[in-house]
Each structure stands twice: as structure tokens, then as C-alpha cells.
């Protein structure tokens, strides 16, 4: 997953919505763990489209 630091508001919408609990948010960056199965929910839930799935 690719996160745009310019767009991200650090709001945690993706963290709480992730079915795998694979996203960790500290004050600066979003980190995806190996648990991520690329379901794409974070891409959709992000209110500001800061997350994209790499091909």
C-alpha cells in the first residue's frame, strides 16, 4: 500500500476499519504490517484518498 504523506490527515479512519488490524499509526506515518491482505478497505475508507494500492 502507498500512503501519500501530503494527503494523509493522520485521522485513523483506516486503522479502525482494517479487518486485519494491519495498520499502525503514529503521529507521522502509517505503517502496514505483514498481516495486510490488500483487501483495499483502507483505500475506500480514507476520506481524502491518501492510500493507493500498488500494482
Amino acid at each position: 500500500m502507498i500512503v501519500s504523506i501530503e494527503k494523509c490527515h493522520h485521522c485513523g479512519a483506516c486503522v479502525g476499519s482494517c479487518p486485519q488490524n494491519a495498520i499502525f499509526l503514529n503521529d507521522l506515518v502509517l505503517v502496514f504490517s505483514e498481516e495486510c491482505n490488500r483487501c483495499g478497505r483502507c483505500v475506500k475508507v480514507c476520506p481524502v484518498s491518501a492510500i493507493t494500492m500498488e500494482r
Partner: protein
Amino acid sequence: MKRVEHDVVVVGAGPAGSMTAKWAAQGGADVLMIEKRQEIGSPVRCGEGISKQWLEEVGITVDPKWVAREVRGAKIVSPSGHTFLVDEKNAGNEVGWVVDRVFFDKALARDAARAGADIMLKTSATSLIKEDGKVVGVRAQSYGEPIEIRAKCVVGADGYESQVGRWAGIDTSLTPGDIDTCYQYRLTNIDYDPDYCEFTLGSAAPGGYVWVFPKDEDTANVGIGVQLSKVKTPGDPKMYLDKFIAKNPGLKKGKPLEAVAGAVSICAPLDSVCVDNLLLVGDSARMIDPITGGGISMSCIAGMCAGKVLAKGVKAGDLSMNVLQEYEKAWRDRLENKLWRNWMAKEKLTTLSDEVLDQLVHTLTEVGVEKLSVQNLLAVVKAHHPDLVKEFEDLI
């Protein structure tokens, strides 16, 4: 590694955490509340509209510092622009004030501190400490240093993105239909009616609504929630909100002071929010009104229930489910019916077309409601469009 020991550790210093900490400390428990951010109440992730009638019950003293604006009532705007206005005679139940969370959250944390709770900022929980399968505390990073916080009970008040519940094996997972993704601007220099909270329904905000909550004469929180299952393109919430603002001449000239993103759960009540020596409260326990997306009152009420039971459990030397089930019962007695009813109403409302929503708002305009609350609005729907609520008419 640094180690500390308390009766109770509360993870998160929002309204749910502070109320739990306050009521537990007041009852004699040794409480530590940890907050990952460097400032309680900031950044704000909230529309900031609250009702008033529950504040006394949970022991919150009103302070003008956190009341940004008292509103006279609410306007519910149908998709085609019909407005149902609830004025001051009968308003004030679901929405009464627009608050300033930066001050409100601090006031609640101050109350917790005055009751004797300790507070640590810039401290984020990283995992549970378990011994023989039993929760005995949390590991955390405090100002960048690892710390072990031993406690007889861990309270997860860590919000929408709660980790504590997941670590404890409590199922807090959500389906896309039970998530609203949100965006908000605080707009200033706008022309609008600063005496009413406004809710616009329908396709302007699929599965949710657009809110305009007055902060002062020419400043308001203008925000949107969109049901995740209705998001077509990533970034829809901001796109829909920008579109709504662009169409409204009074808002269009506004300038943003702040942009807020976030998500709320709009789900049915969880099966369980406790395990031995651990409980969840507030957003982390999905205690959000599925119709309004509001959670402050529920957080505070459940926080009070939790705090009282924690104090009792500490005195009794037992914070297993034996005692915590009293919390489970107390919050359910107070909130569960409302959560179920409003979840079922949400399930129905989010399927309605703009035309039907227009009719509903028209009915409300004709009939009126005595006092603004979701329950009263649903009662009108039940009387005039019974087919829309037949699945849950018993709850209305």
C-alpha cells in the same frame, strides 16, 4: 525498563477515558490515564454538537469555556431542500450546544485529575501484558521510552481505531455498512443561520448526512459522513462535501480554518465489551448513535458506569468478569435499546431514495415533533409511514 503499578490503567484521554478515570478515582481507585498525544482534546475529530440533558447525570459542570454556541434548534433539510425546523420551544434534546472539544476534553480530564487520577501524555499502549492468560497491564511507549504499566484492570478508551479490544480478543470488527467515513471543515466568513444545527439528508451524503454546526456568527463546522458501503471512489467524502459547499452561496464564500478527517462506527451494540480484567468504553466499544454518529453522551454515561464498577472491584479485590459484568449490565440498561433502535433505523434510512426522504421531511413539517430526538422523529415516521419502520416498531 521502567515499571509502574496502579489499580486501573485507562488507555485514551477522550471523554470516555476521562469519565471512567474520574468515577473510578472518586470511588477510591488508584488510576493512571495515558494519552498518546501531547495535548488532550487536540486535534479535534468531531462535529462538536451535543445535547444537554445528560450532563448533570454524569456529573459534568457546565463551563462557558467549552460551550462555543447555544443553538435554538435544528433544521433537517430534505434532498430537494425542504426544511423541517425544530425551534427553541421543543428543541434541545438531541442537539443543544456546539462545544469546543479542545476545552471540553481538557475539562473532563481535569475533573479526573481532581478526583485523583494520574495522567501521562505522549504515552501510547503497544500491547497487553498477560500472565497465565490473565491481563495484568499494558506495555507502552512514553516519550519514546518503553514502560510497563501493571494494573488490576485495563480500560480501552482508545477510540475508533481501538487496539486494546482487539488485543483482548473482543470482536470489534465492522462491516462497510456500519462505518461512516467523514470529512469536515471549520469554515469562517460564511453567511448562514448561526442559531440552528443543520442536517442535510439524501444523495448529498450517501448513507449519511451533511452537518452545519454553528461555532459563532460567521463560523461553523461543516462536515459530512458517507456510509463506507456507498463510497464509489476513494476520497468521496471530501468530494461530496466540496460539492455541497460549492452549491451553497453562503458557504461557498467561506474560508477554512481547519480540516478534519475521520471515521465513526454506526453499528449495532457489541455482544460483549469486557473480559476478565479489561473493559472497553466509548468509541472503542462502538458506543455511537448509528443515526447521528454522535458518541460523546454515550461515552460519558458508559464511562461513569465503568468507573463506578471499577472502584467497587478495586475495593473487593476482584476485577474479573464476576464484577465487570455489572458494568456490562449497567451500560446496556442505559444505552442498548437506543443503540439497537437507531441501528435498525439507520439500516432502513440508508436504503431510502431522495423522493422518500423528501416525503418523510414533508411529513415531519406537517406533523411536527414535540421535542427533537431520534426517538420522537421515528415515532412520527411510525404513525405516518409505518411500513418504513415495521421491522423495529417495538423499539419505537
